[in-house]
C-alpha cells in the first residue's frame, strides 16, 4: 500500500497523521469517444474515507466511476490502486423487474468467488448469512427480489457487492429513488461497515446526506472540480443542486 503523510490541512481527521491512500487519481481526463467529460481531475481516497462525489446531472459522476472501475478507458492521467485492492460497486441501474425469479439470498450469493464447481461450501453459506444479517435482510432473504421494495433491493445490491469483503465500496446514486427513511437505513448500514475500515465513494446529488455521512467531498461542476473536508462543501444555492 502507498503510505504517505498528508498535511493536516488536507484532511479533517484530527487524530491521524499517517494516512494510507488506497486510490490516487492524478490529472485524470476521461469521457466517451473523443469527447472528454471529466478533465484534469486529481484526488485520492484514503483508508476509512467516506468520500462524497457530488454534482448535477451530466457533470461526469458516472463517467468518473466507470473509469475508476476500468469499464471505460481513460484519455490521460493516472489512476493508482493500492496492491490487490478489492472494489465493491453498486451501480445506479439494475434490470430487476417484478418477474425477476431469484430470492434475495440467491441474488446476494451470485457474487461468491468464481470457483469451478457449483455447490456452495459451509464457509460460503456462513458468509452469505452473515452478510444478510449485517444488511438487515435475514427475515426477508427467501422472498423474490423482484417483489422487494426499493430500499430492500438497494440493500440486496449492497449485500451482494460487500459479499467478497471489498476494501473500497462505490455507491452510484444508490439513494436516488428511495424515500427518506430508506435512505437513512441504507446509509446507516454503509456507515457501520465504514467504521470497521471500509472506504466508501458515495455518488449523490443530496447535500444533506453528503454532509451527514461523508468526511470528504469531491464536487464536480461543468467548470471544474473542487475537493476538501466535508464541512467545506458549499451549500447548494440553486434549485436542482440538492
Amino acid at each position: 500500500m502507498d503510505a504517505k503523510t498528508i498535511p493536516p490541512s488536507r484532511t479533517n481527521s484530527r487524530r491521524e497523521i499517517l494516512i494510507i491512500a488506497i486510490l490516487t487519481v492524478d490529472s485524470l481526463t476521461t469521457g466517451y469517444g473523443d469527447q472528454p467529460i471529466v478533465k484534469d481531475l486529481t484526488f485520492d481516497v484514503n483508508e476509512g474515507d467516506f468520500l462524497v462525489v457530488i454534482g448535477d446531472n451530466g457533470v461526469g459522476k458516472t463517467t468518473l466511476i466507470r473509469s475508476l472501475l476500468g469499464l471505460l478507458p481513460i484519455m490521460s492521467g493516472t489512476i493508482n490502486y493500492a496492491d490487490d485492492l478489492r472494489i465493491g460497486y453498486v451501480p445506479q441501474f439494475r434490470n430487476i423487474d417484478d418477474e425477476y425469479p431469484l430470492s434475495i439470498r440467491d441474488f446476494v450469493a451470485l457474487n461468491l468467488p468464481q470457483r469451478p464447481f457449483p455447490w456452495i461450501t459451509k464457509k460460503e453459506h456462513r458468509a452469505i448469512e452473515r452478510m444478510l444479517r449485517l444488511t438487515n435482510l435475514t427475515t426477508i432473504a427467501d422472498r423474490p427480489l423482484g417483489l422487494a421494495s426499493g430500499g430492500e433491493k438497494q440493500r440486496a445490491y449492497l449485500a451482494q457487492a460487500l459479499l467478497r469483503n471489498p476494501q473500497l465500496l462505490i455507491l452510484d446514486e444508490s439513494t436516488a429513488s428511495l424515500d427518506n427513511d430508506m435512505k437513512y437505513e441504507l446509509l446507516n448500514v454503509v456507515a457501520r461497515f465504514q467504521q470497521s475500515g471500509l472506504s466508501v465513494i458515495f455518488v449523490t446529488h443530496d447535500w444533506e446526506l453528503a454532509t451527514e455521512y461523508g468526511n470528504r467531498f469531491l464536487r464536480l461542476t461543468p467548470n471544474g472540480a473542487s475537493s476538501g473536508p466535508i464541512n467545506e462543501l458549499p451549500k447548494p444555492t440553486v434549485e436542482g443542486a440538492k
Partner: protein
Amino acid sequence: MLALSFMRHAFVAGTFIAIVSGLIGVFVVARGLPFLTHTLSEIGFAGASFAVFAGWPALNGMILFTMLSSIVVGQMSIKRSRREAVISAVSALFLGLGILFLSLSSETASSATSILFGSVVGISIHEVWELVVLSAIVLIVTMLIYRPLKFDSFDDIGARVTGIPSTAISVVFLLLLALSVSVAAQIVGALLMFILLTLPAASAKYFTHGVAKMIVLSILFSLVGTWLGLYLGYLTNWPVSFFIALIEAVIYASALLYQKYYVE
C-alpha cells in the same frame, strides 16, 4: 414396451435429452434467449438436411451448423434493439437452405419429416452413445462454468462490474446451447426442440426462487414430458413430439395459473 430395443434406446436418449434441456433451459430463459433457441432449431434443420444431402449422419450436420451460427448470431445480436431482426433474417435464410438441401438430395420426404418432427424409431445403440457423450460434455462444461454463468445470466450488470468475462461466458454458453439443440432434436425434431429448451425452465421459475431448485424442477418437468410423451406415443402411435409439446404447454399453463392464484 421396454422389451422393444428401439423403445429402450428412445427412453435412454430421451432421459439424457431431458436432463440437458432442463439444465440449459434455465439459462436460456434467464438470458432472454428463447427466440434465438427457436432460430437455432431452424438452423439445425438446415444442418441436418445438408447432412442428408452430403451423405453424413444428421447429427453431425446439425452440430456443425448450429455451433457455427450460434456464435455469428450471438455476436450480431448483442444489441438488443436489432436482435429480433437479425434472428428473423438468419432464421429465414436457414429454413430456405434446409429446403434447398432436401430437394437436392435423393432422400424421400420421410427423412425430412423425421428431421423436422423427430423420430423415436430407429435410434441405434451407436446414436444413443453419441447422445450420452454429447450430453456428458454439456453437463461437465456447465458445472465448470456454473458460477460465472449463473452470475452473468441472472445479473449481467453485477457480473460485468465484478470483472466476470461476460463475452467469453456468452460464447461458451452459445456453443453449449448449439450442442443441446442438436442433441434434443433427435427425439422431438428440429422444429419442436425449443419446447424442451424453454418451457420446462420458464415454468420452473414460477415455483421456486433458487437457481439450483429451478434446475431440478426444470429437469423434472422435462423428464415428465419426455417419458410420458414416449409412453403415450407408444400407446397411440401418434407422434411423440406432439405429446411432449402438449404436456410441456400444459405444465407452463399450470405454472401461470399457480402464479396468478397462489402467489399474487
